[in-house]
């Protein structure tokens, strides 16, 4: 039975609606986690009319499975174009699962400075947490078995969509 996957574009709109009353477009800054989170952060940045350009964070150098799996083969640069010190930062990702990526992202963020406040916004919470981490903003929840990967992908025209991959 194929699982019916949520519409990623609609979830972006819903997430922006949740965030709008809680943020100040002049001071709030977004940081997307590579790769899907960066796309979502770009969407939210436009939808919310934020003044600060969004940052991106790769977590390649902060992952907790380096000793088991080594360095990720496609390690990317993190780019944070604003001063993290004292900022209100919303970390953005496509899918929240074990929570390990979020832990790594927060650790990395703090190496850029001490933010005043950090929130987490995700399109989908798929359950399966291994750490005490919860999203502040989430537009959809579902439960998937560990054998499946829920991945956000992007069409050539920029449309975002979800795909389910069997491990």
């Amino acid at each position, binding site marked *: 039975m194929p699982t019916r996957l949520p519409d990623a574009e609609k979830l972006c709109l819903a997430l922006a609606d949740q965030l709008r009353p809680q943020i100040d477009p002049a001071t709030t800054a977004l940081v997307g986690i590579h790769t899907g989170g960066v796309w979502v952060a770009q969407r939210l940045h436009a939808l919310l009319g934020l003044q600060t350009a969004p940052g991106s964070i790769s977590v390649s*150098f*902060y992952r907790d499975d*380096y000793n088991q799996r080594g*360095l990720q083969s496609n*390690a990317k*640069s*993190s*780019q944070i174009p604003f001063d993290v010190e004292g900022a209100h930062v919303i970390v953005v990702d496509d899918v929240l699962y074990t929570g390990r990526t979020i832990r790594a992202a927060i650790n990395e963020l703090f*190496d*850029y400075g001490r933010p005043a406040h950090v929130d987490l916004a995700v399109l989908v919470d798929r359950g399966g947490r291994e750490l005490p981490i919860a999203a502040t903003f989430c537009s959809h929840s579902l439960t998937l078995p560990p054998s499946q990967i829920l991945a956000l992908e992007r069409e050539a025209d920029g449309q975002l969509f979800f795909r389910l991959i069997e491990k």
Partner: protein
Amino acid sequence: MTTRNPQLNAHGELQHLLTLDGLSREIIAKILDTAAPFSTVAEREVKKVPLLRGKSVFNLFFENSTRTRTTFEIAAKRLSADVINLNINTSSASKGETLLDTVDNLAAMQANMFVVRHASSGAPYLIAQHLAATHRNDIHVVNAGDGRHAHPTQGLLDMYTIRHYKGDFSQLTVAVVGDLLHSRVARSQIHGLSILGVPEIRVIAPKTLLPSGVERMGVRVFHDMKEGLRGVDVVMMLRLQNERMQGALLPSPQEYFKSYGLTPEKLALAKPDAIVMHPGPMNRGIEIDSAVADGKQAVILPQVTFGIAVRMAVMAMLAGS
């Protein structure tokens, strides 16, 4: 029967970095790609990432080198490793301990990586073989320069520098100039350039400073520097290794400068956008004129900065393999 490259593990990943000779273009490109994100770490508030937290890197320098040792030390510290510098000249070796006894002792101290500089070609190989024979495959070896043989991280940082300024290797003409005879740097550069597909590699040197059989490395040999520099994209100068000279290989440093020193007049024969590189330390007025060393085509200081990112990438790839 196929012999496995001793640098690679059973999965084809780098286990040690001993030489660029025999590495695939894919592996070298992967190291350069991995170095790029490491280059941004130094721009942050905290110039450190936690990858090698809890790991011990031993710098084993059987031969002095301030710059190479320092950049390896910085690279390891920016990866959060604990770094132990051993200046072996002043330590056990002078009391008669053998190289492999030193290695066994450090392995017993739970070392994770050895960065080795040695005056004898092949010393890092010997250590890597010994670690395999004693079932210490958890310890990685990085060659930081052995005799006249290889200096792979210098070769890699030079390739990173060329890629940074020139983008693509497939259209380049590159000249390596100077004392090739004594130069492990030149060998690693030539291997790197040919593996990455540089179509024309030139070497420019007097006959007395060329190793025999250099043509077999796929290079064009020039004895006239002006002829050799014509139309090149990259000029890689080598240091004249006076301390390694035995006998009369050279008339005098002044004569050498006249024929093989890089002056603005000679550099004008290269392409107008040619870059000038040097592995350091420079002998100003012997192999390079100050006007060139400090000129706008020189990328000698960026080489040093890129060297840290490249060494971080190598150590992170080895320790995670």
